[in-house]
């Protein structure tokens, strides 16, 4: 299967582990992700205001590139890209006059975008579509009932119109990980916000969020936190390190992209992960389970 792939800015830098592991995993599952040519930033956050159309240009331009690729589905790994692209497409689908204004503004583009030509697909949805027997057959390492906390954050499940699964209790990640031999733990904080971009201007808020989320995962027996958002990854990983430096009794949990673990279980060389990008080293847990 072939699918267009939109990386977005952070997947090429801070979240490079997400990209390398996801692409290696998809290759094992016979999915070919073809990167869009000449892509730009998606704008990161969907603009919720009705009168600021300028902020819709970046995502719509990205969708134009996808339309020009000739394939009708667009894969995103980053949950922020997923959310922004999908909501912008819905926005112009529902507001014809605004759609025309946006297209008029971009009249140098050879292609117009109307809102429903491209299906934006998140990596979790794509993995969920793959037959579970096929997924199970691709798993070559025993996870030995590794206990994982699956963290979705905000943008994969909210708002309802773009949610990849149930808004309050999504199960996509749990199903994938169970098929791969892991034991997802009960984790009531799985869709709670990590304070997102507030980490830039109000780190104190983001820290308290991290403390609550990690405490919940640990109290429920998790050995690691798995997620699919580069900003959640940064917040939970980096701020745990800070909390631990401040108070050594605060116990940390390693944070990995769900594709990092799945790729290892599917037999991808664990060394494709750049472990220096982690603030909390996940190698001791992986070693304990014999996965390195």
């Amino acid at each position, binding site marked *: 299967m072939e699918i267009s792939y939109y990386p977005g800015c952070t997947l090429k830098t801070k979240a490079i582990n997400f990209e390398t592991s996801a692409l290696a995993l998809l290759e094992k599952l016979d999915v070919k992700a073809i990167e869009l040519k000449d892509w730009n930033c998606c704008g990161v956050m969907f603009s919720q205001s009705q009168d600021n159309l300028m*902020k819709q240009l970046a995502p719509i331009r990205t969708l134009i590139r996808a339309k020009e690729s000739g394939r009708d589905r667009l894969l995103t790994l980053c949950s922020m890209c997923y959310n922004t692209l999908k909501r912008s497409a819905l926005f112009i689908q529902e507001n014809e006059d605004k759609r025309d204004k946006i297209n008029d503004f971009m009249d140098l583009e050879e292609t117009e975008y109307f809102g429903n030509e491209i299906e934006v697909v998140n990596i979790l949805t794509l993995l969920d579509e793959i037959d579970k027997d096929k997924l199970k057959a691709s798993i070559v390492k025993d996870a030995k009932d590794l206990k994982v906390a699956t963290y979705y954050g905000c943008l994969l499940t*909210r708002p309802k119109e773009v949610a990849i699964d149930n808004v309050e209790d999504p199960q996509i990640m749990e199903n994938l990980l169970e098929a791969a031999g892991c034991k997802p733990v009960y984790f009531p904080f799985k869709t709670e*916000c990590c*304070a997102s971009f507030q980490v830039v201007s109000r780190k104190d808020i983001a820290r308290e969020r991290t403390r609550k989320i990690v405490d919940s995962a640990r109290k429920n027996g998790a050995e690691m936190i798995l997620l699919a958002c580069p900003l959640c990854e*940064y917040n939970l990983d980096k701020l745990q390190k800070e909390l631990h430096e401040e108070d050594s009794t605060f116990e940390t949990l390693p944070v990995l992209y769900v594709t990092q673990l799945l790729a290892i279980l599917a037999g991808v060389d664990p060394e494709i992960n750049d472990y220096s990008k982690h603030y909390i080293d996940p190698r001791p847990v992986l070693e304990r389970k014999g996965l390195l």
Partner: protein
Amino acid sequence: MAISLNKEKLRTQECEKLQEVSGTNVYSCYQCGNCTAGCPCVDAMDIPPHEVIRLAQFGQIEKILDSNTMWICASCVTCSVRCPRSVDISGVMEALRQIALQNGNEDVTKLGELSSEELEELPQIAVISNFRKLTS
């Protein structure tokens, strides 16, 4: 919070602008408080989300703009998905930020105050989304 109201103080025109920019009807709210109960950042807010909507219903937009509430909101949309009356509270917060920035409110995040180490360290998506929400 006690506020006294009279005909002159009910600034419905400003509330209309808020509703236009946010695309939501604040008069649908019946003050159940679900938005505030689920808000991850409410502890740091001057005015909790359900009170913001109540003040908006009375046209007290100035009072809301004087608070820090919309600058603390992380746009996680938990409030909007849980609202039994389909009020897009998260959209109202965005509209409040837009109105404040258009009114000449100083940027909450100042690029110049971020050190080069911080900018190097933070993922691009953190910095860009912060600027998209908190600067003009």
